[in-house]
């Protein structure tokens, strides 16, 4: 945990410095009609850098050598994160509904080891229900791909 704590603190300090730098660019003083745009973020950045330095100092002195994540737990977390990332990557190309169908099907088949029949039934039903609720019922358009274009949506 110590390494993770220190890393996070330093990332946040870097972020804070970036905020301070950008605020100085647009001005942190008194404009013609009140404080300039950079005033509020500047002080937020200053306090954040200060607080993160305290956190980093504490973490530096701590003896918590436990790893951020148990070695055995990395796999289940990645098994969620990687397919989810693939799903988001596929969405702009295939449209949300097709991506959802493939994502659900792939996840059920390779991680859940369900039978092909239930895989197809569930993944198609999920997308069909989502499509009906959002496109037809609530009229909220989702990203669409070649399949929807083919059917005229």
């Amino acid at each position, binding site marked *: 945990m110590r390494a993770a704590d220190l890393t996070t603190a330093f990332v946040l300090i870097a972020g804070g410095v970036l905020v301070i730098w950008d605020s100085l660019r647009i001005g942190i003083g008194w404009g013609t009609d*009140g404080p300039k745009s950079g005033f509020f973020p500047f002080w937020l950045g200053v306090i954040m850098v200060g607080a993160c330095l305290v956190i980093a100092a504490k973490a530096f002195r701590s003896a918590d050598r436990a790893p951020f994540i148990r070695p055995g*737990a990395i796999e289940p977390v990645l098994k*969620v994160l990687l397919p989810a990332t693939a799903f988001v990557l596929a969405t702009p190309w295939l449209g*949300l509904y097709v991506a959802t169908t493939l994502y659900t099907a792939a996840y059920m088949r390779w991680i*859940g080891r*369900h039978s092909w029949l239930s895989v197809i039934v569930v993944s198609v039903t*999920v997308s069909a229900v989502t499509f009906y609720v959002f496109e037809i019922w609530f009229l909220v358009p989702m*990203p669409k791909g070649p399949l929807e274009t083919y059917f005229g949506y």
Partner: protein
Amino acid sequence: MGIENLLLGFQVALQPHNLFLAVIGVGLGTIIGVLPGLGGANGVAILLPLTFSMQPTSAIILLTSLYWGALFGGAITSILFNIPGEPWSVATTFDGYPMARNGQGGQALTAAFTSSFVGALFSVVLITLFAPLLAEVALKFGPPEFFAIQLLTFSSFVGLGGGNPMKSLVSILIGFIMAAVGLDIVTGALRLTFGFTDLMKGFDFIVAVIGLFGIGEILLTMEEGLSFKGASAKMSPRVVLETWRTLPRYWRTFVRSCFIGFWMGFKPGGATPASFMSYSFAKRFARNPERFGQGDIEGVVAPETAAHAAGGASLLPMITLGIPGSPTAAVMLGGLIIWGLQPGPMLFKEKPEFVWGLIASRYTGNVIGVAMVLAFVPLFAAILRVPFAILTPLIVSVCAVGAYSVNGRMIDIWYMLIFGVIGYAFKKLDYPLAPLVLALVLGDLAENALRQSLIMSQGSLLIFLERPISGAITAVALFFFALPAITPWLRRLRGAPVAAVKPRET
């Protein structure tokens, strides 16, 4: 003046259309509360974009009913599966799950739902009485007073939050900084965009909530390797009636928990500490405290009553001052702004049908909620028996749909995923998420209040201390900020170590 306004509210809440929405809301909310990774806050966030075209009153009725449903859903998973769906139902698992394992699941659920009902009803009655008075006072507030209240809200996270105070402070600052990204509407300057046009519109709090709470929670759940091995509950009208017959015996616990809940609840983040506090009080005053943790029904009554009294009380600062007391309330407040309503005391004057419709819907939503969960518990519990290989992609894609529908931008789905990873890391490292979300929602309001105050005072920060009301509030806020630094010193002075219960935070 209270009664006829409340009647006006009931006229709104009892319209068939709104009653129907309340039923839908409670049903959806209960499902959301039962599902791991989908709590009240992101359930409301996902549905919020769908309400943009609705009447504000109907929209808020749908969302508050959803919130009630999520609370009930949390009780179901805590008792039957030992999985607290929400942080304030952690204390419910202490006795609820043992009861379910002893074959008393039906009794535990009935007690939990009834207690929730009592707690929520108590707080809504107090709100009916006090909200108009508080709004009347708040009408006299100027920008310095509003900024002082914001300061008080965030100081209580740092001073009373119970976690690492420095990390709470950093979470708040991250929220405010994220709120500042994009176009500054006052001066027209672009802030913190570094030339990226995608950053011009800033970060949407809905996307942040869906990512931080939704995706982050699934990652955490997977890491802990949850297995949904649930106890089953036999619910029959006979069990319900028999349990109801025993409950009046615990009237002392009910009353005590109601007050603890309400008192803790109108301060931000109050529901979780309220439930723990109420549980430990009940244990201390019980005739046979050794039975607590073994499946004592009083151990279910106490935290559930307090959590729901607190959940109801968080409405008070939200509608009177425009300060949400919980992440869910923060999302609803964001909704108010999107629907074109200005949160704060003026709502009582300008939109009485909205405010009183909201208050009245708390009464109706509660009654509908209790009736629905009592009737359909087995159905809701069956959701958790759906294999996780179906649930996980389902939850992720629902979250993606929610994030996309806010602005119709693909980049928001990416933000959601990134926020998910951040939420996961922050939770493991003990950075609280609730203050971050609150700061993100309140950022612009707080900054405007600060700016206007400084314009009034020609740039002097002393304005916050010189005006009597804002002076008093600021003083308390400064005390809370200083509290973590003073406490070790105070403790040494008393010579007694104080053990703090640190609940897991969502």
